[in-house]
């Protein structure tokens, strides 16, 4: 096991398109790092560069002590699990698992022992004599994980491994992979993992730390809680969390506390927000999670008055879509607290919880309300 370092790694394609813009990332030994971002953000390219399946056009990749820029994938001490499993279709599961060791010239009995050990961990003993086409999606994915595990690599790379599975199986596999990671750690051989996904649920539940990417840049690297509570910029704020954080233009004025004005209505956001700000008065982007918006009768003190645009009943909670002027808001209200008589077109009041609100710079998107916060 080893740590993984990316220093100023760049990727420019032959046609001049720059996919990765000099990213820096340190993955600690035994850490579970998730790369997440929308499609086209170069997260898979980054993973493939670590694997050696893509060349890098600038910077340095280090695994442990070694710079691996120019090493072939097989010499980098990595193992990779692919999105569509990529099992060798003409080999039985047993041979699929042992192929890597076989290439390294390991003796047969050693391969057999390793195969048995891995298949026991992943509960695929009964599948060893099957061909990949005789496996279900979940089984094939377990074999693919086994093929990585058997090599005892320094770094595990996962490329959207669960996206071909149905929702239920995906949840089960998620737990299985995190359990496996913990188990290896407990057994004293911690596994360094880089896991690519576009699914924020996977990212939040699996990662020790999460690296949010956009257009070949790293937007923020942090643990799930920090990412959720203190997003570094409007992109991360909007990307993490369901439903998305409300990001609306507002005007900030600071008096005793901090006043936010939008659509001609002003609300007092309180001292807590004021203390966190490092920005002059003026236009800003207000960020507030749907869970932190209160729904009150229209005209209540210190509330924004809006019009109900849509109501989505989700079971345990209700998503209330409302418009304040032209700014769309979503509020999540527990079902039992929701006034069932509310109709589309009704007037409602929305209260902003100042201690949970974020303020972003309009042009850079940077979060300017993190002063005094840890980190």
């Amino acid at each position: 096991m080893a740590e993984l370092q990316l220093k100023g790694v760049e990727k420019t394609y032959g046609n001049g398109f720059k996919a990765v813009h000099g990213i820096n990332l340190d993955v600690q030994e035994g850490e579970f790092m998730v790369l997440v971002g929308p499609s086209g953000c170069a997260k898979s390219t980054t993973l493939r560069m670590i694997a050696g399946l893509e060349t890098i056009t600038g910077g340095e990749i280090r695994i442990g002590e070694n710079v691996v820029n120019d090493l072939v994938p097989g010499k980098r001490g990595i193992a990779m699990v692919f999105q569509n499993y990529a099992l060798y279709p003409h080999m039985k599961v047993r041979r699929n698992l042992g192929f890597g060791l076989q290439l390294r010239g390991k003796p047969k009995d050693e391969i057999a022992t390793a195969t048995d050990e891995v298949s026991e961990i992943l509960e695929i003993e009964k599948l060893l004599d099957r061909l990949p086409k005789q496996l279900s999606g979940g089984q094939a994915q377990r074999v693919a994980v086994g093929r990585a595990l058997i090599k005892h690599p320094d770094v595990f790379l996962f490329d959207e491994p669960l996206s071909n599975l149905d929702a239920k199986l995906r949840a089960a596999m998620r737990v299985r992979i995190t359990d496996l990671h913990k188990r290896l750690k407990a057994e004293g051989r911690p596994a360094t993992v880089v896991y690519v996904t576009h699914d924020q649920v996977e990212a939040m539940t699996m990662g020790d730390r999460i690296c949010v990417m956009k257009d070949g840049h790293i937007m923020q690297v942090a643990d799930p809680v920090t990412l959720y509570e203190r997003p570094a910029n409007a992109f991360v704020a909007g990307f993490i969390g369901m439903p998305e954080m409300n990001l609306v233009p507002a005007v900030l004025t600071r008096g005793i506390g901090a006043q936010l004005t939008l659509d001609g209505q002003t609300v007092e956001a309180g001292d807590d927000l004021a203390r966190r700000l490092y920005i002059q008065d003026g236009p800003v982007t207000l960020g507030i999670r749907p869970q932190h918006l209160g729904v009150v009768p229209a005209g209540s003190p210190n509330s924004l008055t809006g019009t109900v645009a849509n109501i989505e009943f989700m079971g345990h909670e209700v998503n209330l879509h409302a418009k304040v002027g032209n700014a769309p808001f979503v509020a999540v209200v527990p079902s039992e607290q929701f006034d069932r008589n509310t109709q589309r077109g009704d007037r409602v009041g929305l209260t902003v919880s100042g201690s949970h609100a974020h303020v972003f710079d309009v042009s850079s998107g940077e979060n300017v309300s993190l002063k005094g916060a840890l980190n």
Partner: protein
Amino acid sequence: MAAITDIPVAKSPEPPTAIELKHRRQALRSSILRYGLLTIVGLIMIYPLIWLIGASFKTNAEMFSSAGFWPKEPTLSGYIEGWQTSTPYTFGKFFVNTLWIIIPKTIGTAISCTLVAYGFARFEFPGKKFLFATVIATLLLPNVVTRIPQYLLFRDIGWLDSFLPLWVPSALAGDAFFVFMVIQFLRAIPRDMEEAARVDGATTLQTLIYIVVPMLMPALISVCLFQFMWTMNDFLGPLIYISSVEKYPVSLALKLSIDTTEAFAWNQILAMSVLALAPSLIVFFMAQKYFIEGISSGGVKG
């Protein structure tokens, strides 16, 4: 008595209604018509072949007296005399000659096409586009155009009257069609398996041998089959390059019987034609499953 499974049997105890009976009669009539027509057309197509086999057992005298395929006085003399030939060699010698061309040619084609196609389908190298265009261009070139330059070339190397000009070009991926076919097949195979092999530590050659070739098998079997059949049937190539009778392959040897002064012994020619057809047919039926799979390729699951 067993029921015919395709025709749904009414489960209800009531007898079928008049309309149901009418529909069933119509369905029966239309299928009789369809299959009848197909059988007739099929027979017309295959009749020359059936006639050929029948006629090979006829006497020379009977051959052109009736169009029927069943010999009145079946005889093996066509086979026996035809096998002896009018040369010092038996037909067996000619079959062996054919094999000496086919075996290196087929194996060489399979290996060389795989290597070339793998290169074109999976690697980036300078001049790739130009080279690929060249390969495809040779595909479009009429064979006739290259005959004379090729002949002169092989004459200068001293390969005339040997099997070499017949198989060496193909064994060096000279048949652009096969290269193209394998490339198209390879393009349909996702690269993930090869990438997985590289991550597993395989070199390029190991990846090719352990991963790519097994997945290419259907295409390679098709390539071998085509090459086998086309070589077996090739007449012009041997005619141009082989001059001594002891090196004649089957296709030329058949013509030999016509050339001789004996009044055309048609039954011998036909008998030997049947034998000449046999290898292609046997190989085709043995590999039919893969052959069809190869032709209808493209749908390779990831």
